[in-house]
């Protein structure tokens, strides 16, 4: 019963013989996938159909007559070889011919044409991406680099948000339905904007984003959608229907955080500076008006005249009749009350009503003295006097009447 054990090499040699001699040279038709033109000049790719695939190599010395691209249907002539060191078999391609355009491309172009006709790509129906969304939906694979890149980018730029992550199948069977469902789920979760996408991959990997089902879900969504599928060069149907296309998931994360935390901090600084400047401006304008009283010359002249008249009345009163005197005393009282009224016009009286006076070196500023940035003045208020550095000055809009 027991057979004699063979070495791995012997078994591999037997397989190699069976495959290489048994199959020999073949002509194979299939679809190109994962085509890589290595810097060495050799080309590595996969030939596939609906259910199977075979790794292929085309050495540098052999040149195809066209530029191979993923998705193309090609006819390849070659032979099966076994790479013993890794226990792998592959098709060594001698020549390659295109067989029309690949089925996937045909399907892609047809769907694109249909949807364009139905208005799915109309620029007029593109919604604006909110500038400062609070809830950001993400539909992508939970395990890929894409989701990490997006969360890290959002954290770095604007962490004051909630990310609603809907783990989503992004390739293979059922992926299209799941993407469509994820869009509806995120819509129900009341996000302000959503990103659907995935990292790079082969055209088959990205295919779930090229279906009518996904296009319909994007089209029907009430929430603006950014599509970020694969790399810069990958374009999917989802990209055309979405409100905005981002070259990569990271770029999408940047688009939903167009306003960064630093931007906002800076604008708060600007606004508060402007507020302070406005209020300082207003107060200095008021004290300018108060300053015209503080100047005092007008007041002094009036007071002197009052005193002179009072003196004259006094002189006269001693000489004229008491009847006249009463009359004169009456007039004096009137003058006194006028003087009391004037006292309320004392330079510092407005302070009790919330105004302030601008002084320099203890003296009120002259009317015609123009303040300049860098000047240091004292602002005297009822309760305190502050030393103030002038930041900005503008000409007053109100000219005080002299």
């Amino acid at each position, binding site marked *: 019963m027991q057979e004699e054990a063979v070495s791995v090499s012997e078994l591999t040699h037997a397989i190699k013989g069976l495959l290489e001699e048994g199959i020999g040279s073949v002509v194979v038709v299939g679809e190109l996938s994962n085509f890589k033109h290595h810097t060495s000049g050799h080309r590595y790719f996969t030939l596939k159909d609906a259910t199977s695939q075979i790794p292929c190599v085309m050495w540098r010395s052999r040149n195809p007559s066209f530029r191979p691209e993923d998705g193309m249907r090609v006819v390849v002539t070659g032979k099966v070889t076994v790479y013993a060191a890794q226990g792998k078999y592959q098709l060594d391609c001698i020549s390659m011919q295109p067989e029309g355009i690949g089925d996937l491309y045909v399907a892609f172009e047809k769907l694109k044409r249909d949807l364009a006709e139905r208005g799915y790509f109309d620029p007029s129906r593109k919604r604006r991406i909110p500038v400062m969304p609070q809830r950001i939906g993400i539909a992508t694979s939970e395990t890929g680099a894409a989701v990490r890149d997006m969360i890290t980018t959002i954290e770095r730029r604007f*962490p*004051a948000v*909630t990310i609603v*992550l*809907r783990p989503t199948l992004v390739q293979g069977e059922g992926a299209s339905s799941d993407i469509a469902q994820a869009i509806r789920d*995120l819509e129900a979760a009341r996000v302000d904007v959503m990103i659907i996408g995935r990292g790079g991959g082969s055209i088959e990997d990205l295919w779930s984003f090229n279906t009518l089902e996904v296009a319909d879900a994007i089209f029907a969504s009430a929430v603006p959608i950014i599509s970020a599928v694969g790399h810069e060069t990958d374009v999917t149907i989802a990209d055309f229907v979405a409100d905005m296309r981002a070259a990569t998931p990271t770029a999408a994360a940047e688009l939903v955080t167009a306003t960064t935390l630093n931007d906002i901090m800076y604008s708060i600084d600007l606004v508060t500076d402007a507020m302070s400047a406005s209020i300082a401006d*207003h*107060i200095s304008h008021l004290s300018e008006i108060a300053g015209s009283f503080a100047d005092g010359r007008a007041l002094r002249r009036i007071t002197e005249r009052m005193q002179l008249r009072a003196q004259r009345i006094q002189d006269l009163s001693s000489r004229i009749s008491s009847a006249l005197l009463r009359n004169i005393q009456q007039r004096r009282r009137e003058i006194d009350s006028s003087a009391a009224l004037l006292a309320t016009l004392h330079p510092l009286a407005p302070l009790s009503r919330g*105004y302030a006076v601008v002084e320099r070196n203890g003296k009120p500023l002259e009317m015609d003295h123009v303040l300049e940035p860098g000047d240091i003045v004292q602002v005297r208020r009822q309760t305190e006097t502050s030393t103030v550095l002038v930041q900005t000055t503008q000409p007053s809009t109100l000219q005080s009447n002299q």
Partner: protein
Amino acid sequence: MSKATAPTTLSLEQQLKRLEEISSLLDRGELPLDEQLKIYEEGMLLAKACREYLDKAQVTVEKLSATGS
């Protein structure tokens, strides 16, 4: 949830709008001094609250189940 630290029921965007509003009111300078001082103080408090809120802000990640709703 970082939401709890929001100073008022207004969203950050609404608060920033109010700040802009106050700033332009002060810029026009049509209100009486008392009123101006009042909204100036409101604006300064709002700015302070916004800064504190942003300083503390952290991304919250909510995960929806993959089975659909």
